């Protein structure tokens, strides 16, 4: 069994990270009834003997003493991290695995990347090495950040290069929150484009997330809960957005609910690697199957169901509905419509009481309405994990490598060009040592090249699917 380390950077990254650790603890508590530290828990947590001072306290087997998250928390402002360290999860974090500063990055990618990158490079390396040493077999770094700000965007992407150089064999999975159109940070297009170049070059896999989509999802759930349309009540804890166990009538801060969706995404992504099932899917299989060409590593994700009704019966129809929903544009975590774009590859990660025949039936049913690229007509990767998420009897995470990400990137480029043409706010960046206009130009070209790749793939949609002539051999 392998371990993963979560690196949460910036305000957004740390808030999502916090939700993730809360949910992860609850998931393992629900599964691991006997309190024995097993390999599943060890993938994200260390077991520490709190009586031991210093580093020697790791316990690899036996009863759970004290769980510590395999996490590194980075923020250039103290507010968010301090809140976490004073909150209910304070004991889960190792106080030595933090890097904070006071002044913040001022929503400036260059400050995050160049200034703080240089300043904290040694410390970052040290914390990362320490967290790797605690692992028996480190497989993956999960980086959580936003693209629109300064720290998450700049320092978060600086990290990627460090990770690539220091741990070339370890996967880098990045969960990136992209700014929505109505984002209140004016310089978010600059930050995002500069960060995109780094993601293109140094990430193995990126899961783009859009705040607007998350917001739409929670609005939908709210509507359903409050409209009384459902008749029977919703099972407590089953909302993909719920955090503190009980179903709250009045919403917590909206970001809490939105962050929980992303936290669930990460849990479901790793469930088949942590828990048993009849068809396992490890993290290295995600990259292997969903990334046909190194640059095209952006995966659109969708989670279903968003809630479970209290009645226990799961008629086949409802199971099938779960599969249909996964492909609807309302359930995607970015503004995209994969059904009407071109699939390069698709992964279905199922949890709970679902068998291979259910999978096959639904793939057969949905395939005709989806368009796959000519050389990957059966481009499905599937996994079955027996352990369902807390509060559900089954769930589905769909990951699509699909050209529907293109509009998001094109819009980003649009917004960037509008600002850049006027040279608005540029001086804030150019005054940072190491930043020149060429940095911006390179970043835009990198994005344009990516968009062009997607364009070329889309162009193949209108071509007829023909089998290529095979090798002819003499017998």
């Amino acid at each position, binding site marked *: 069994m392998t371990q993963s380390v979560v690196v949460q950077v910036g305000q957004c990254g740390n808030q999502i990270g916090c939700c993730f650790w809360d949910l992860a603890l609850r998931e393992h508590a629900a599964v691991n009834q006997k309190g024995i530290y097993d390999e599943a828990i060890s993938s994200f947590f260390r077991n520490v003997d709190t009586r031991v001072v210093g580093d020697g306290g790791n316990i690899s087997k036996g009863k759970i003493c004290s769980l510590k998250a395999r996490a590194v928390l980075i923020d250039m402002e103290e507010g968010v991290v301090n809140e976490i360290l004073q909150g209910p999860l304070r004991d889960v974090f190792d106080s030595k695995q933090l890097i904070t500063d006071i002044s913040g990055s001022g929503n400036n990618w260059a400050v995050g990347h160049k200034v703080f990158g240089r300043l904290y490079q040694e410390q970052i390396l040290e914390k990362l090495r320490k967290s790797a040493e605690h692992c028996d077999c480190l497989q993956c770094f999960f980086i959580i950040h936003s693209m629109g700000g300064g720290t998450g965007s700049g320092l978060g992407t600086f990290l990627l290069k460090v990770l690539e150089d220091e741990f070339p064999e370890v996967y880098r999975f990045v969960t990136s929150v992209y700014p929505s159109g109505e984002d209140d940070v004016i310089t978010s297009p600059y930050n995002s484009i500069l960060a995109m170049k780094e993601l293109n070059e140094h990430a193995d896999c990126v899961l783009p997330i859009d705040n607007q989509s998350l917001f739409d999802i929670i609005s939908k759930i709210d509507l359903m809960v409050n409209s009384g349309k459902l008749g029977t009540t919703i099972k407590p804890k089953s909302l993909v957005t719920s955090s503190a166990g009980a179903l709250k009538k009045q919403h917590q801060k909206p970001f809490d609910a939105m962050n929980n969706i992303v936290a669930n995404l990460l849990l479901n992504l790793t469930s088949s690697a942590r828990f*048993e099932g009849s068809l396992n899917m490890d993290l290295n299989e995600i990259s292997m199957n969903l990334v046909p060409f190194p640059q095209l590593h952006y995966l659109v994700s969708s989670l279903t169901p968003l809630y479970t009704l209290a009645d226990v019966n799961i008629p086949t129809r409802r199971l099938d509905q779960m599969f249909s929903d996964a492909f609807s544009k309302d359930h995607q975590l970015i503004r995209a419509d994969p059904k009407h774009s071109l699939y390069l590859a698709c992964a279905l990660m199922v949890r709970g009481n679902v*068998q291979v025949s259910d999978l096959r039936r639904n793939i057969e049913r949905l395939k005709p309405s989806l368009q796959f690229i000519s050389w990957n007509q059966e481009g499905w990767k599937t996994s079955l994990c027996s352990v369902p998420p807390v509060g559900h009897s089954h769930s589905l995470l769909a990951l699509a490598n699909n050209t529907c990400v293109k509009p998001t990137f094109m819009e980003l480029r649009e917004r960037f060009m509008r600002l850049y043409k006027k040279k608005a706010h540029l001086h804030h960046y150019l005054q940072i040592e190491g930043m020149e206009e060429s940095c911006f130009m390179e970043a835009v070209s990198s994005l344009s090249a990516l968009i062009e790749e997607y364009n070329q793939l889309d162009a193949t949609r209108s071509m007829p699917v023909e089998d290529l002539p095979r090798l002819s051999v003499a017998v």
Partner: protein
Amino acid sequence: MSIVTVQLGQCGNQIGFEVFDALYSDSHCPQGLCSKRENEVYQASCKERFFSEEENGVPIARAVLVDMEPKVINQTLSKAAQSGRWKYGQHSCFCQKQGSGNNWAYGYSVHGPRHEESIMNLIQNEVEKCDCLSGFFIIMSMAGGTGSGLGAFITQNLQDHYSNSLKMNQIIWPYGTGEVIVQNYNSILTLSHLYRSSDALLVHENDAVHKICAKLMNIKQISFSDINQVLAHQLGSVFQPTYSMEGSYHYRRNPLGGFKDPALYTSWLAPVNAFNVWKTQRAFSKYEKSAALVSNSQFLLKPLDTIVGKAWNMFASKAYIHQYTKFGIEEEDFLDSFTLLEQVVASYCNL
């Protein structure tokens, strides 16, 4: 005459368990529909073939379990031990922490050489426990990374070290509509390598077994467990010892004289030789009468052709190739595999 089984990857280990379970259940079946003495000889022969004896009477499967990550092996070991009837040897497994990532190249070029010694030692241990080794039975899937890549590597090794023993590979043909996206690449690489080192490939298609579960057995929600049990049942009935009343392992020529239709036979084989029947008095697994058919025919032509075609289309676009070249499998190796398989397809076509 003993058979040493090598179970590779998730598929191989999950199926392997079901096979040993089926073999055990059958040999300890109370209604043999034959004489007591016949039953005893049958049981003894089956036991010797597949199990070795333990001190407190619980037979140990003659098997080596290999996987590159621990979850499945742990599950398999505990399921066997829990049954209380038979179990796997304590030191018969080889396990690593990180899987092969569905990557044939990783299984073949990285895991293979790295763990060659350890795995071959385990196999050697099992072989030494046998009085008389008849051969190896290797269970693997083609679609993944460990079963396929490491399986091909190990089979090659077995060919080098035990060239006088029979090697039969049980390969699982994946579902047509993907379980793994790169399954076609993994399959053609596996098949082309196995052709050079295996003596016989016994093929089971997931699609076919699935249909059996659905249509013939009417199972509503088919799980991999169901599929594996059907498979194990088929394999069991083929592998159990045949025994004739003459008191030795005789096979009898077909009293019916073979099929009449000449189209069923190749030109170079006389009908009476093409069809061999082994008849055994002892019933299999409580069935009053049962028959199992193992054939070498053109049935595999269409699936093989399909897989080669799909792999070729994908190869032409160069998709996913970087994942293989990363670990030393170059485009040349792919081309070699394609060439070999096209020859196989052509050979079967020309029959």
